[in-house]
């Protein structure tokens, strides 16, 4: 079974800085990780490969830096890594992003049997790219799967959706997005990581290789525009207290009393 796993590199920090000119997040100098649900997608692919054989290709669209995420995926056991990168891809919404990724996948020979994505990312959190890729590639889709089985040349998957547990049979080729609970991603040994950063091979495809026109991708290929990016009004009180452990415990108990979680006499 040939599997493509779509991953995204996301910032691993709650201290997000905003570029107010470009209405984007500043990603320079920020530590990054593979989006956690994409790691689960990769793990599912590794698991399926072990049972069914085949090849795993990992794909990401992003700046040069996102090559790190691909190398990490190679270290985890992916066979091939492709970085979709081009200055023209910048500023893409999910419509334009799915265009680029679909174009890359449709170029693969043979066409993959299965495409896996995380259900959503921790940064923009839309969950759009999976289903939009499925649409662009005219594939059947199931989002947020919690179990994947291969039975009689079809996929049998489970999904928790709006209070129902649904079981579907899906014909190949197909696209699935994965949810938490599907698996626990393996720990990647440091040695394997070092190896992947030393001599792992990452292919780079841009506008030219994908035969796309600049107006189809990036900012110009996007239907939506971010007009303002801002911190929501702070609703927390944000009172911070320092002192001895005894003082802190007293503050804590006073707070519990004020919330009626402890009675006053109990706190005496």
């Amino acid at each position: 079974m040939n599997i493509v796993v779509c991953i995204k590199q996301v910032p691993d920090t709650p201290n997000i800085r905003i570029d107010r000119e470009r209405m984007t997040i500043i990603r320079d100098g920020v530590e990054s990780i593979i989006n956690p649900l994409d790691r689960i997608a990769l793990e599912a692919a590794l698991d399926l490969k072990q049972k069914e054989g085949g090849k795993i290709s990992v794909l990401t669209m992003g700046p040069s830096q996102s090559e790190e995420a691909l190398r990490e995926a190679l270290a985890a056991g992916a066979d091939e890594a492709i970085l979709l990168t081009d200055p023209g891809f910048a500023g893409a919404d999910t419509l334009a992003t799915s265009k680029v990724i679909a174009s890359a996948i449709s170029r693969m020979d043979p066409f993959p049997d299965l495409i896996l994505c995380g259900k959503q990312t921790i940064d923009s959190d839309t969950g759009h790219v999976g289903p939009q890729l499925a649409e662009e590639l005219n594939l059947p889709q199931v989002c947020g799967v919690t179990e994947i089985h291969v039975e009689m040349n079809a996929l049998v998957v489970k999904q928790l959706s709006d209070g129902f547990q649904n079981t579907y049979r899906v014909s190949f080729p197909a696209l699935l997005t994965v949810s938490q609970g599907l698996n626990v991603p393996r720990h990647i040994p440091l040695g394997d990581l070092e190896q992947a950063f030393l001599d792992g091979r990452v292919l780079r495809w841009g506008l030219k290789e994908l035969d796309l026109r600049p107006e189809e991708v990036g900012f110009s290929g996007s239907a939506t525009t971010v007009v303002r990016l801002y911190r929501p009004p702070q609703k927390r009180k944000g009172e911070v207290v320092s002192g001895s452990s005894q003082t802190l415990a007293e503050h804590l108990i006073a707070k519990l009393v004020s919330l009626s979680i402890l009675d006053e006499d109990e706190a005496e």
Partner: protein
Amino acid sequence: MKTKQNSDPSTQAAASGRGPSLGMGSQGKETPLGVALSGAERRRRETKWVHRALPAGTHWEGVWVFGDYRNYFQNRVTLQLIAKGNQLARKLGADMTVLVLGSQIHQYAMEYTAHGADVVMVVDHPSLKNYQVETYVRVVSQLVQNFKPEIFLAGATAFGREFFPRLAKRLNTGLSADCVALEIDRSKRLLIQTTPAFGGELLADIITPEHRPQMATVHPGVFVERIHDREATARILYPEVDIEAEERVQLIRSRPEQSRKGGLEEADVVIVGGKGLGSKENFQMLFELARLLGGEVGATRPVILSGWTEESRLLGQTGKNVKPKLLITAGTSGAVQYTTGIHGAETIIAINRDPHAPIFKMADLGLVGDAKTVLSLLLEKLRKRL
């Protein structure tokens, strides 16, 4: 399987109630629902009706809401969207239409009318009984292309978030996810869509300047539904549409998820431990604390990876979201993957040694100190009262 919706006028009259038919639209048939309209209201509606009778495809106008009636009494997001959609439509001087797909769904047309729809568009067919993304995309994309609404909203339910992206792609238009606010820029006739990013750390205002419709999924619970008004009226429309069921994805089974009452997601008090607690033994202390405070214990990813407790206690992006009255978070620095799971807490108390830990930014009370020692002192106090 490819069939047309049955549009036998006699079935429509029976389903939609009293009154003479107002006439035929270019896209189908309409009949009024409910009791007589007030004079002004009738004029407004009838004027609109004339407008609607224009050939389809002249320009994009009107607000649509996708009517998701599953689990009707608990899932109120469609009703919330009807109320909001109605406001938006008034600002645009346009109609608010609820689109409802399914099999034997006439009762929902009545409900949506009572909750404030101007028009309910019904596609009733056995093939539409189960919510199936691809089948629904085929039907709804035809309707959007024919009727050209300028705005189209759906609840950010699991189905909405699976269905709307694919629909937006087929229609080649923009979509924003899980909106928490919607406004109209009247001068440009644009929908301003406010969506959270980084688990609510940031908000983004998004517009869809040129593509139509302007599509958004909306977070349940941010808008307030209208009171059920049985005097309300709406036009019921049965559009003609090709219905072709998807066969590549087959539903084998669908059963209600076993609801586990109690547990982390329902707890009033949640105590979360992070790696800053130092050891598995220190983490164990949280269980006694939770028991004495009548709460549950949660954990961050690093704690799970260290094997201090089981995976089912994981909070955040790859774990559970909690909404207790009180959350105490001890020895957690505040990584986004974790904090996305605790935004719903009413009060957050954070204990951490590092005064610069980001967790303090989202706490109501921050205690700068050793979490283990502070919690031990609290535990002593609680034990004494027994």
